[in-house]
């Protein structure tokens, strides 16, 4: 094992990268405990009930970024988030990432004289949804169309879904960005489109999913840009999980 200290945890909420505003991120995953103990049992019989997953962040306020992110997310259903605990800027394409959609319902900001403006933002996953444990697939600025190198994430079982989160955190004016998630049976083989994000013409975020079964095990991100003076900074996280 490797005991890890976390210094580069990346966090994106909606169309904002909050990494440089935060000092703590907590991912809570909980199931209701249902007591199903019956006669003849000698010990408790428990079953998992409804999932209750949540994301809480703490940091120092920068109104232009963290403030704008909180304003956009607060009270807004299905806000897309991604957290890459060891995914420093430009993190490796195999770094673990958690992705999901949440309703951020709680914001607290506290200021004392002569002190920093500290804030916290908390959200719970959208109804019926969980935090998905996936992979950071893209985190860079692009000026031309291309695709990422295939990464082996595995197949999508019949009862599973492939989930994708797109965060476009910087966009050149008047230009467009089209992002797809594709899969293939081999790293160098022909890739099939599995998730297609809506064309971005500015900063935005979006969540997509597709049901299994998908037997392909290799996955990559394709992006097509249009316009002049193009520059898009975007993040894509992908995960395969049972709902």
């Amino acid at each position, binding site marked *: *094992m490797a005991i890890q200290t976390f210094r580069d945890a990346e966090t994106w909420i909606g169309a904002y990268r909050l990494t440089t505003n935060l000092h703590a991120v907590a991912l809570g995953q909980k*199931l209701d405990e249902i007591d199903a103990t019956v006669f003849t049992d000698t010990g*408790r019989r428990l079953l998992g009930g409804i999932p209750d997953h949540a994301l809480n962040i703490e940091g120092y306020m920068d109104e232009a970024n963290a403030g704008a992110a909180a304003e956009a997310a607060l009270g807004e259903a299905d806000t897309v988030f991604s957290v890459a605990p060891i995914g420093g800027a430009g993190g490796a394409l195999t770094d673990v990432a958690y992705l999901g959609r949440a309703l951020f319902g709680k914001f607290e900001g506290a200021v004392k004289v002569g002190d920093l403006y500290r804030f916290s933002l908390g959200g719970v996953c959208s109804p019926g949804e969980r935090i998905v444990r996936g992979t950071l697939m893209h985190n860079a600025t692009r000026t031309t169309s291309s695709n990422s190198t295939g990464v082996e994430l595995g197949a999508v079982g019949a009862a599973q879904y492939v989930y994708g989160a797109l965060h476009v955190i910087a966009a050149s004016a008047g230009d467009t960005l089209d992002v797809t998630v594709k899969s293939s049976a081999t790293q160098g083989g022909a890739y099939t489109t599995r998730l297609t994000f809506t064309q971005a013409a500015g900063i935005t975020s979006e969540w997509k999913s597709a049901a299994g079964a998908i037997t392909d095990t290799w996955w990559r991100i394709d992006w097509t840009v249009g316009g002049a003076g193009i520059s898009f900074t975007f993040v894509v996280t992908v995960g395969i999980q049972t709902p």
Partner: protein
Amino acid sequence: MAVTTYRNVRVTFNAVSWLSYHPEVTLVRGFPEIDITPMGSTGKKMIGGGVEAWEVRCRLFLDVADNAIDEQLSGLLADAQAGTSRTMALILDKDAAISAANPEYQGSGMIFDYTAPFKVGDVAVIDVTIKGSDGIAIIRDITP
């Protein structure tokens, strides 16, 4: 009694050893206290309920690497949601044979929640509780 320091306690859950992740392990066993105090009593009269509840609390250093503890926990939550209990074994000294002085506690349980706290420059320490979930009391095995 023999005062002992413990350095080799090992929890194995779903056939995976957590030895290298946990600095602290706590076994909790209990029965409900049922008050059967009748009229005329001058003190409480209690009996233990017939169904044991047990849990093993582990403090873990989180490792998010591929196939490491974080990925295991994620799968174990999915198991709980699917109603699947997983085997648990807790032995006080992993290097010694099972005996009356070194029992192994065995059962089947689930994990229902955990929170991964990432703080800048810090190790992520998480507290995970395995709860007995298959309707069977924990077994204290002393058979070598």
